[in-house]
């Protein structure tokens, strides 16, 4: 370019070419710059989108923790003042006499949940033995799907079912309430036991059978102990789940204001009492409802956290 400009005779055509070249280069340079700028802008948009959206997911996580913390704080602040020795050792009294305590509901809950565990745990574990040994037979597949359906049923539907089964023609009873809770526990017990038994190495089973142990002895003294911590985790989660159940008890255990341990009569429970007290207009009952909520939350959260600690201990 520099070569010909000075020595060559002025040639209109050549001059135009030179100018053209310069122009073209300038145009190209500008275009390149525009492209670079545009791509930098795109890059910026992408980077900002990236940061904003990733930030939003973090925010969503924080947002989900707010209700948990809020509920726990409220339950502790509003419930703790009402938890007195009298509250835990007395039964129901009319509000004009101070409202009494919730001993009847504590006893009722213990009976209901205890009885439900006694009914559901053996059945769940036995059925899990079957499912683990025969996962792909017709019955195995059917019960695996059935367990999923049972686990997904609204608890109120289970309550209505037990009503038609055990309450119609008889009366509301503690037994019916326990059966309803047992049906809600069964799928949880079955599924966690199944998952845990699956993790036990086959060599353990083969070794026991090879030593001449019968199938049932292998199951109860080799497989179940090997899976014990996991099964225990499942049982704790199942108990936690039904400790707070209210809806199915409306149609089965009904609730009661007297301290009772009879299985053929209505019985109180903590969540049911909480529901009744919360929907009454009396402030004394509201305070008691918060106190019951505190008791339930302590039980449920302790079981949940305990189950997770055991599970982690096992994993390590």
């Amino acid at each position, binding site marked *: 370019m520099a070569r010909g400009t000075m020595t060559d005779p002025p040639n209109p055509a050549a001059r135009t070419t030179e100018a053209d070249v310069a122009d073209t280069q300038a145009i190209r340079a500008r275009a390149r710059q525009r492209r670079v700028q545009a791509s930098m802008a795109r890059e910026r948009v992408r980077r900002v989108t990236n940061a904003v959206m990733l930030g939003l997911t973090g925010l969503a996580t924080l947002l*989900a923790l707010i209700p948990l913390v809020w*509920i726990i704080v409220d339950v502790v602040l509003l419930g703790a003042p009402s938890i007195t020795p009298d509250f835990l050792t007395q039964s129901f009294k009319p509000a004009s006499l101070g409202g009494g305590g919730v001993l009847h509901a504590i006893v009722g809950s213990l009976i209901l949940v205890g009885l439900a565990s006694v009914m559901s745990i053996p059945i769940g574990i036995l*059925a899990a033995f079957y499912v683990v040994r025969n996962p792909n037979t017709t*019955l195995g597949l059917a019960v695996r799907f059935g367990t999923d359906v049972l686990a997904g049923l609204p608890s109120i539907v289970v309550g209505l079912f037990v009503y038609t089964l055990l309450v119609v023609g008889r009366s509301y009873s503690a037994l019916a309430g326990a059966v309803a809770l047992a049906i809600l526990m069964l799928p949880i017990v079955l599924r966690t036991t199944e998952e845990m038994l699956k993790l036990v190495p086959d060599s353990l089973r083969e070794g026991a059978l090879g030593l001449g142990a019968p*199938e049932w002895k292998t199951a109860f003294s080799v497989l179940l102990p090997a899976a014990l911590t996991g099964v225990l985790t499942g049982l704790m989660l199942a108990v936690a789940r039904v400790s*707070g159940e209210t*809806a199915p008890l409306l149609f089965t255990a009904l609730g009661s204001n007297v301290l009772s341990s009879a299985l053929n009569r209505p019985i109180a429970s903590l969540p049911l009492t909480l529901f009744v007290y919360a929907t009454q207009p009396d402030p004394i009952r509201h305070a008691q409802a918060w106190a019951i909520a505190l008791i*339930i939350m302590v039980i449920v*959260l302790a079981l*949940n956290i305990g189950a997770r600690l055991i599970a982690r201990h096992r994993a390590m």
Partner: protein
Amino acid sequence: MVVTKPLSTKLPTPLVRRMFQHGDVPFKIIIVLATLFTLALVVGVGVMLWLFTSVTRMDLGFSFVTSKTWNPTGSQFGALPFVVGTLITSILALIISVPLGVGIAIFLAELCPARLRAPLGVMVELLAAVPSVVFGLWGIFVFVPTVVKPLGNFLKNAFGTSGDVIDLPLFHGPFYGFSYLAAGAILAVMVLPTIAAISRDVLLAVPGSQREGAFGIGCTRWEAIWQVVLPYGLSGILGAVILGLGRALGETMAVTMVIGNVAQLSGSLLSPGYTMASVIANEWGESSTPAYASALLEIGLLLFIMSVLLNLLARLLVWSVQRRNPQQHA
């Protein structure tokens, strides 16, 4: 002679004695019975509810679901207001909780430092462990007065008064706090952990090669998640949403305590109403006639059918994802 005698008596043991010798056959029978019992429960729920609702099923047939008049004292049983109430509250809950839940799943599965993942995950799951009735108590005395009321009043003033720039019938009518809006909002909190936890498991099951490929062609992290990881796990996330919907449909206590409990058909989120589950819980004590009880049981039967169908759909979706890459599923 002396040596062979015990042998000869031992070999031809009768079949029955041999079967029971080690207790294996009884054991097998017992575990099969336990399994059959579990299965019978599922079938039994449907059968018993079907049998006990014959009164209203014979009398009303399909008009039970399509009639909108619920007047038990006049023996008029129309479940439409409750079906609509259940749909309104559940859909509202999903609109709030699906974006949040998927966001949480993305954060926990893709972004969160490994050390924080477990404790944050546990906290989200603990929210699922809070009993429904405690949510209800908190709803009545805390959530509705401090969150739902201001929110509802704002929506009413901004969109619900005739003459506004944007006038939505969704926010018309008187507002006292206890409403579809309150029920939907509290349901959103309750189904959020379900959606978040299952979606997180689905995202964790997406193979790492998918992400590496996306990063390899220059994607940002968000582009990799949005254009590669999420589409890969879409059917699993859909399954999570459906399971969340299943929980929202059947949720009883918390909804009963905040929805206001009025049997009316209303298109406004601010008006009180009933859901299917809450009408059963709330009116059970008053069901004096056989027809009334049968009507409430039939609502339960409808809930049962909806829940079975939803579970079927959700399991199919989640299974389809897990089958695609079984080795990745932790």
